[in-house]
């Protein structure tokens, strides 16, 4: 997704910032650190860097180099976004955030969007975080993600080509793998999806 946005030839330059939430890193992935990681990717103007350098030097002098508070981080993020023509923020696996961080994160994103309405935000997560997302973005667009049968088949074909013991594979088993696995996975995805089709949520 990020590469597609960056690689796309467009009339205007765009800025893309991405973040991957990870449950193994929950303690360090505080909302301020996540916002800081996004901000790092959006500093592309000397003036923004100048503000940051001043704040950094002040923190070194007065706060023993402590990091910014969330509200200061969001403020700087808004400043950075204001200097860019179009900003895309992508955050993967929101369900892997600690619950309190998730709500803070959504609140911060909402705050950013209110000030910079051209910003586009893409988030992914397991189905159960939908309620939280809808609570903050009632008009957000929700799309189910599932691999297509065609993609699964191509993936299996590639894996079978890399089989280190091809002699142990019979033609019948080979054909069965390519037929049955894609069908079963597609069925699983349909059964486990709460929402059947892409839709716009308007409550």
């Amino acid at each position, binding site marked *: 997704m990020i590469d597609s946005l960056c690689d796309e030839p467009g009339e205007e330059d765009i800025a893309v910032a991405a973040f991957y939430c990870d449950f193994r890193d929950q303690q*360090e992935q505080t909302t301020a650190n996540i916002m*800081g990681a996004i901000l790092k990717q959006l500093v592309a103007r000397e003036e923004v860097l100048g503000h940051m350098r001043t704040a950094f030097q002040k923190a070194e002098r007065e706060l023993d*180099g402590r990091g910014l508070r969330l509200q200061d981080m969001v403020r700087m993020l808004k400043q950075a976004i204001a200097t860019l023509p179009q900003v895309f923020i992508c955050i993967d696996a929101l369900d892997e955030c600690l619950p309190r961080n998730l709500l803070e994160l959504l609140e911060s994103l909402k705050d950013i969007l209110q000030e910079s309405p051209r910003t586009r935000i*893409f988030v992914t997560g397991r189905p159960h975080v939908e309620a939280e997302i809808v609570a903050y973005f009632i008009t957000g*667009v929700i799309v189910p993600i599932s691999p297509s049968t065609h993609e699964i088949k191509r993936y299996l074909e590639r894996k079978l080509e890399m089989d280190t013991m091809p002699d142990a594979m019979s033609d019948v088993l080979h054909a069965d793998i390519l037929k049955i696995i894609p069908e079963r996975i597609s069925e699983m995805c349909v059964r486990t999806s709460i929402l059947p089709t*892409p839709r716009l949520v308007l409550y």
Partner: protein
Amino acid sequence: MNSHNTILNLNQVIADENPEIMRWLSPLDPRRRHQDVRTNRFDSVGSWFLETNEFGEWRSGGGGTEKAVLFGYGNPGVGKTFLR
């Protein structure tokens, strides 16, 4: 990432020249994780997503602020992280 995106390049230069400020902003480094994702991604997996109307409208901003947020949901392993 590619090099024809000017903003990306400017950001890269600033980040490289100011590592102490970048570390102060956040100890987290999502670029490294992104490299892993790119390396492990299988060809054009998830390219169907880029062809959906929902993505197109979100990308172009056609839906305005109301459609500024796009949420792709799915169970573990369906390919959310690896969407092309």
